[in-house]
């Protein structure tokens, strides 16, 4: 058993703590403010009638679970004073009391009610409740010996040891997760923040919309200004904060939804693709009448009408517009005391202030390491834990699963530890090797006869093979695999789909001047070089918006061809997706080397006329249709919707999203899993093509699989749905409607039946069954209809 120290109780620190605790470690979290949760506490749910996948609710659920864990101790209002990291890591801290041990707390509010000066505030958001102390008011901090909250707590959760207590914490390793501060919008004096009324920042708006429907009045005219303090070399911040487009577009959508009369404009440089259904999302926004204007206002003043007048560069000229309110989409800047923490823990800090650690027992994660969204922070925290565990800090105790009280029988269902990985691309290989390292028997199959470059020692790799049938359920899948040696039968506990997408070759022309982007380099080489410069086109965003992955490929290809003699590369795109510091640098160097970037709007057409290609598009700057002739064009597959193999999805019993990729649109609810327990998906078959992200996802998938199969059994509470044999008419409705594939036909009994370890107890089948043959225990109609008899009071 080891103890770990985490600095910062934001979503990154808390997620890491939760994973460490689940592995059996003890964790101390030091939080400088009085509240747990970091920035996420102030964010709004950005759903309309449909979810926008902002991740705030998920973060809340995670926070709620973590603070109640008895292996995690969070110390709020605590400061680190000294760190000694020689043979062991010793950290001296100072904390303000009272403190609450949430693993004991029953959230009964006795502390709040007993406080004589009312210094304790209870905050509840979703599942997450915490108590926050106002030390200014607290009698303890006025030198009085008050301990009412402690005395009145029935569960011994309040701790007081003087007003301020010092302590030394010794830990095997530390994880720094001190997060970020918002870029200070006051630095941009001309944009008016802090100077003019009704100029807000993104985080102000998050806060406001988390408790009211509009910004300051209904029917307002609101404009968002993107990239305030991001992608701004003059401010020393030449990187994309990568979260602002996502929160701004989501906030805009909520504002518009809550009040149809709200007029919304978004001023931008490039809108970043932040989600796997991004194109549909952006189309929805445009359909709602939200105005996208390219160009960042450089001046804001109060106009004569009393409105805010903004000046925007417009081609070579300047145009002006008026709005009631402005939202400055400020990006991510270093945490306020980041320098102090860097000094204490000997961290390195890059030119933008992001931290990294050269020490082998100090790790850095979250937005203090680079710009990240909530979900990315959670994945990165998992990856950090994997590094920490990889450093061999003592064996963890396997935590005993304390069974929660239940009236139902609990059964142990044995689980196979064998894993099947389908698809030997980077995603599949990465997951297979990670699982192999964890000690699981792994079978990797691929339908093509490929030879992986990586050393796959220990993985049972069968090429030229395909899954042909699948039976059973989580822990005990029975698979038939067609191999070159004939059909073979296997048993697996878990299945991972990493099958990539069906390559869409439609865009490649017969005459040969339009090729797929990955072949552009060689296609250019195959041509005779002309004396004069030849124009080569790279066409992006053709049908859907490019991702970071395809942008990276496009920029690398462009740079490579541009550097050859006598070629001029043009990149045609709607927006440049550079939401990572490396991409911003790559973009910069390709422009420096002479690659020309042309941004178009609307539809672009590429025609192969036999001698070259003709590209036609609307130029938003020149405001007219433009025709460009090139010798050859490379089309990015990222700009065309890529489907996963529908036959395989059917075979695996998993559902897809609006693009036919694996996983539903609500992928955020199960980052690596699918609707079917025991089946996981990752890589481009579920819409992620960006190499670095695939590696992270593969690690995350391996971790979830490890957690599932490590115990060798699944503990199942037998409260799954029960089918009345006499009523069941075998109409198969339950089988079709079950989201997790838990229903099967019991041919002996002649009726449907649920599989205990798969059933999620949602009761959807109960609601759908036309014969009313299914009951969800605990939710019988009579029980639901039981009600207090007191009359409604109107």
């Amino acid at each position, binding site marked *: 058993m080891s103890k770990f120290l985490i600095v910062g109780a934001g979503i990154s620190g808390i997620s890491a703590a939760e994973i460490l605790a689940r592995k059996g470690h003890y964790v101390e979290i030091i939080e400088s403010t009085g509240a747990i949760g970091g920035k996420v506490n102030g964010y*709004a*749910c950005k*759903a*309309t*009638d*449909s*979810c926008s*996948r902002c991740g*705030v*609710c998920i973060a*809340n*659920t995670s926070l709620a679970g973590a603070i109640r864990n008895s292996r995690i101790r969070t110390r709020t209002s605590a400061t680190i004073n000294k760190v000694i990291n020689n043979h062991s890591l010793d950290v001296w801290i100072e904390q303000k009391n009272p403190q609450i041990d949430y693993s004991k707390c029953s959230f009964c509010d006795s502390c709040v009610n007993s406080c004589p000066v009312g210094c304790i505030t209870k905050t*509840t*958001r*979703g*599942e997450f409740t915490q108590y926050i102390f106002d030390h200014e008011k607290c009698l303890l901090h006025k030198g009085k010996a008050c301990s009412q909250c402690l005395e009145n707590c029935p569960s011994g959760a309040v701790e007081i040891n003087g007003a301020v207590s010092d302590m030394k914490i010794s830990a095997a390793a530390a994880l720094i997760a001190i997060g970020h501060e918002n870029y200070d919008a006051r630095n941009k004096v001309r944009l008016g923040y802090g100077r003019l009324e009704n100029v807000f920042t993104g985080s102000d708006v998050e806060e406001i919309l*988390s*408790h*009211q*429907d509009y910004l300051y009045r209904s029917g307002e005219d609101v404009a968002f200004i993107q990239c305030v303090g991001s992608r701004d070399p003059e401010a020393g911040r030449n990187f994309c904060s990568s979260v602002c487009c996502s929160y701004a577009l989501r906030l805009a959508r909520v504002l518009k939804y809550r009040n149809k009369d709200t007029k919304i404009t978004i001023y931008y440089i490039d809108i970043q693709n932040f989600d796997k259904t991004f194109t549909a999302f952006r189309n929805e926004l445009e359909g709602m009448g939200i105005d996208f204007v390219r160009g960042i206002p450089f001046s804001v003043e109060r106009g004569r009408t009393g409105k805010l007048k903004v000046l925007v560069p417009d081609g070579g000229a300047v145009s002006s517009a008026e709005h009631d309110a402005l939202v400055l989409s400020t990006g991510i800047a270093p945490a306020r005391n980041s320098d102090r923490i860097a000094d204490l823990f000997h961290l390195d800090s890059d030119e933008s202030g992001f931290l990294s650690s050269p020490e082998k027992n100090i790790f850095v994660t979250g937005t203090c390491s680079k710009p990240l969204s909530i979900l990315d922070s959670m994945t990165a925290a998992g990856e950090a834990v994997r590094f920490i565990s990889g450093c061999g800090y003592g064996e963890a105790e396997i935590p005993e699963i304390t069974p929660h009280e239940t009236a139902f029988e609990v059964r142990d269902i044995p689980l196979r530890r064998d894993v099947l990985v389908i698809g030997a691309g980077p995603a599949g290989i990465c997951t297979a090797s990670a699982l192999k390292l964890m000690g699981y028997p792994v079978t990797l199959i691929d339908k093509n006869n490929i030879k992986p470059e990586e050393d796959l020692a220990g993985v049972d790799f069968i090429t030229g093979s395909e899954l042909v049938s699948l039976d059973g359920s989580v822990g005990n899948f029975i698979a038939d695999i067609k191999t070159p040696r004939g059909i073979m039968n296997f048993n697996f506990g878990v299945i991972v789909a990493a099958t990539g997408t069906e390559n869409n070759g439609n865009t490649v022309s017969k005459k040969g001047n339009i090729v797929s982007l990955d072949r552009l380099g060689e296609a250019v080489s195959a041509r005779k070089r002309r004396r004069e410069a030849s124009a080569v086109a790279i066409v992006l965003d053709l049908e859907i918006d490019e991702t970071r992955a395809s942008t990276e490929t496009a920029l690398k290809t462009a740079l490579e061809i541009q550097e050859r003699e006598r070629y001029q590369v043009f990149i045609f795109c709607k927006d440049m997706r550079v939401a990572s510091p490396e991409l911003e640098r790559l973009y910069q160097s390709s422009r420096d080397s002479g690659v020309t970037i042309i941004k178009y709007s609307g539809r672009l057409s590429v025609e192969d006329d036999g001698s070259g290609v003709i590209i036609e598009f609307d130029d938003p700057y020149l405001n007219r249709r433009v025709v460009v002739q090139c010798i050859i064009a490379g089309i990015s597959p990222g700009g065309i919707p890529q489907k996963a193999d529908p036959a395989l999805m059917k075979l695996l019993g998993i*559902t897809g999203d609006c693009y036919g990729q694996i996983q*539903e*649109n*609500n992928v955020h*609810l199960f980052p690596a899993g699918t*609707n079917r327990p025991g089946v996981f998906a990752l890589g481009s078959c579920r819409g992620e093509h960006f190499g670095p992200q695939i590696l992270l996802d593969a690690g995350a998938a391996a971790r979830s699989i490890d957690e599932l199969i490590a115990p060798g059994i699944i503990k199942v509470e037998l409260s799954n749905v029960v089918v009345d044999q006499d009523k069941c008419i075998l109409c198969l409705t339950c089988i079709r*409607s079950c*989201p*997790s594939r838990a229903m099967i036909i019991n041919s002996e009994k002649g009726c449907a039946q649920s599989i205990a370890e798969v059933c*999620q*107890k*949602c*009761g*959807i089948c*109960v*609601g*759908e069954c036309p014969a*009313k043959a299914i009951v*969800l225990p605990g*939710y019988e*109609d009579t029980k*639901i*209809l039981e*009600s*207090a008899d*007191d*009359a*409604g*009071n*109107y």
Partner: protein
Amino acid sequence: MPEITKTRKAVIFCCENSSLAVNAVKDTRLLEGFEQKVLPCSGKLEVGLILKCLEREHPFILVLACPLDNCKYLKGNMRARKRVDLANNICEEIGIGGGRVRMDYVSSLDAHKVERILKEVREQIQGGLI
């Protein structure tokens, strides 16, 4: 079916997630006159259950479900939507008025949205609009 009187509480059917938003309603007076029935997923709600509540003289049924694409069970909320529409149609057909069942999508963090909905429903019942 007996005539609807306002002798019983209005019923809120909600899934486990949206019930968190109901529980976080700050002004608890808004919840007076409402009775909350929590289902694991809104997809568990049956038309029969809605009709039975109306039959038992609960004057109004409010169904709260997760926003679309945010259902833990994928499409439970869409199923609930269909059943709410069906229940309203049936009510209309049998002559007790179609506006007695209302459905909204709220996430676990949307307590303020729940407050607004409760106010609207209360006004509707008090105003005798149903």
